[in-house]
């Protein structure tokens, strides 16, 4: 109810000429906003950049999380639960503060610069570490790695250990076992992890706000801007509709690649 109604209403607002008067009052629809949103090359570019950023973040976080999940599924033994909690604690700490922590890491007087200066690698602090797209990407990868490990772990946990034994019986070395048994069977979990990172990252506006500076802006930031500073709700709504449509389309593609029910069932 509270999801469908606002989305429908948002879609209607995106067709309004302006915001004068009652929001529920009838109005003559206009495509002005969409013309503006479609014509503005900057919007498309930013949507593309946001999608690319999210793609990169999701891909790297998933790849980085895979060995962690593999360790938890097959190597951690009796302490697996403890190791899992250890992995998830960072995820349960304040999101804003974790992003802030990266500001402290990458800032001109931050950890990375201090270490490099102390080691004599550089003389003056590097300013280029913070307030750009690279900083946004690094921070987001950091934020999502623990989360990405969960669906992969669920996928790996469903693999019958006897398959490994069978593979070993057939003289498959560790590498062949992994490549021909484990990896193919874990792919649904991998795809799920990718999308679980990708979707929230596309709509991200908080991290770019904190560590992105002017060069690291994402699509979510212009939407946020139109609803706050610029106070042009109709075009903000139109951009939101475009973003929602794009995300839903991607999710539908994702659901065709992997059936989420296969991860839930035991």
């Amino acid at each position: 109810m509270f999801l469908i109604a606002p989305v429908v209403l948002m879609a209607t607002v995106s067709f309004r000429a302006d915001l004068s008067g009652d929001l529920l009052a009838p109005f003559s629809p206009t495509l002005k906003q969409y013309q503006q949103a479609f014509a503005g090359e900057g919007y498309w570019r930013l949507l593309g950049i946001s999608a690319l950023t999210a793609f990169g973040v999701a891909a790297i976080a998933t790849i980085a999380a895979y060995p962690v999940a593999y360790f938890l599924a097959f190597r951690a033994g009796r302490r697996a639960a403890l190791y899992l909690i250890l992995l998830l604690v960072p995820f349960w700490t304040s999101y804003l503060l974790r992003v802030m922590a990266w500001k402290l890491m990458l800032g001109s007087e931050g950890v990375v610069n201090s270490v490099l200066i102390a080691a004599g690698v550089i003389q003056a602090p590097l300013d280029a570490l913070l307030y750009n797209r690279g900083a946004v990407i690094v921070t987001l990868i950091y934020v999502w790695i623990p989360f990405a490990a969960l669906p992969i772990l669920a996928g790996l946990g469903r693999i019958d250990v006897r398959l490994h034994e069978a593979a070993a019986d057939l003289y498959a070395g560790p590498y062949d076992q992994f490549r021909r048994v484990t990896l193919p069977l874990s792919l649904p979990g991998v795809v799920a992890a990718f999308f679980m990172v990708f979707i929230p990252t596309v709509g991200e506006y908080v991290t770019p706000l904190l560590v992105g500076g002017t060069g690291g802006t994402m699509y979510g930031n212009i939407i946020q801007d139109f609803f706050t500073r610029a106070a042009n709700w109709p075009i903000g709504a139109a951009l939101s509709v475009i973003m929602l449509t794009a995300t839903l389309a991607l999710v539908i593609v994702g659901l065709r690649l992997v059936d989420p029910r296969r991860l839930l069932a035991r």
Partner: protein
Amino acid sequence: MATPTARQARRGFPIIRGYYWLMIGLLYLPIAILFVFSVNANTTLTFPLKGFTLGWYARVVSTPALLHAIGNSLIVAVASSLAATILGSMLAVVLSRFEFRGRGALTGLAMLPLIVPYVVLAVALLILFRAAGISLSLMTVSIAHVVVALPYTTLIVLARLIGFDRQLEDASMDLGASYLATIRLVILPIAAPAIVSAWLTAFTVSFDEFALALFLAGRDPTFPVYLYGQLRFAQTLPILIATAVLLMAATLGLLVIAETIRRR
């Protein structure tokens, strides 16, 4: 040589344990740095460190606006997590125990908030509240948090209910219990651990949520919104970091309790 055992099959990739610990190290490094600055005597968050102090922790309790914001977050988290848990549990019972037309559609609808970008949900709700003439308050934030927490609570309770034998309910009804009594005496006790962990999940989701709250909180900020507003002022940062460390410890405590209950 004997038949290769599972143990032998697992022997490959010794490097993987090292990789796990490397990742853990990387994940904890920024948090460790935050902690270091929360006990560092200097106002600015730069190296070299100035010496040890617990003064920032003491100033947490003497900052009324901060405590007020934390109180707000608690109100929102309690209200939204209770609502999301009750709704999610009911939805889970309906989805797991009844066959009806549109069940797949209802499941999809319940999961939909997972795939709607937060910024889109935030502006959509903002428009709705304005159209309905509802002024922004902790109430509007709570509603948004119920929407985003509902998929989690539903899934957690659903996973538990699916794992149990439906014949337990049939038996209860055969023995003369009404459906309500069956819910109270059979389904609720079965689902109880999952309901508790669903509630705690919803609570932590809400307590830390910023992207929606920034749009919907109005003039009375929740803790993340307050924190965001204060990030500009360098001199209050160590206090905020100290607060976050305290909250982190509290959250961790809650989750350990949740995990212990769930494992019963």
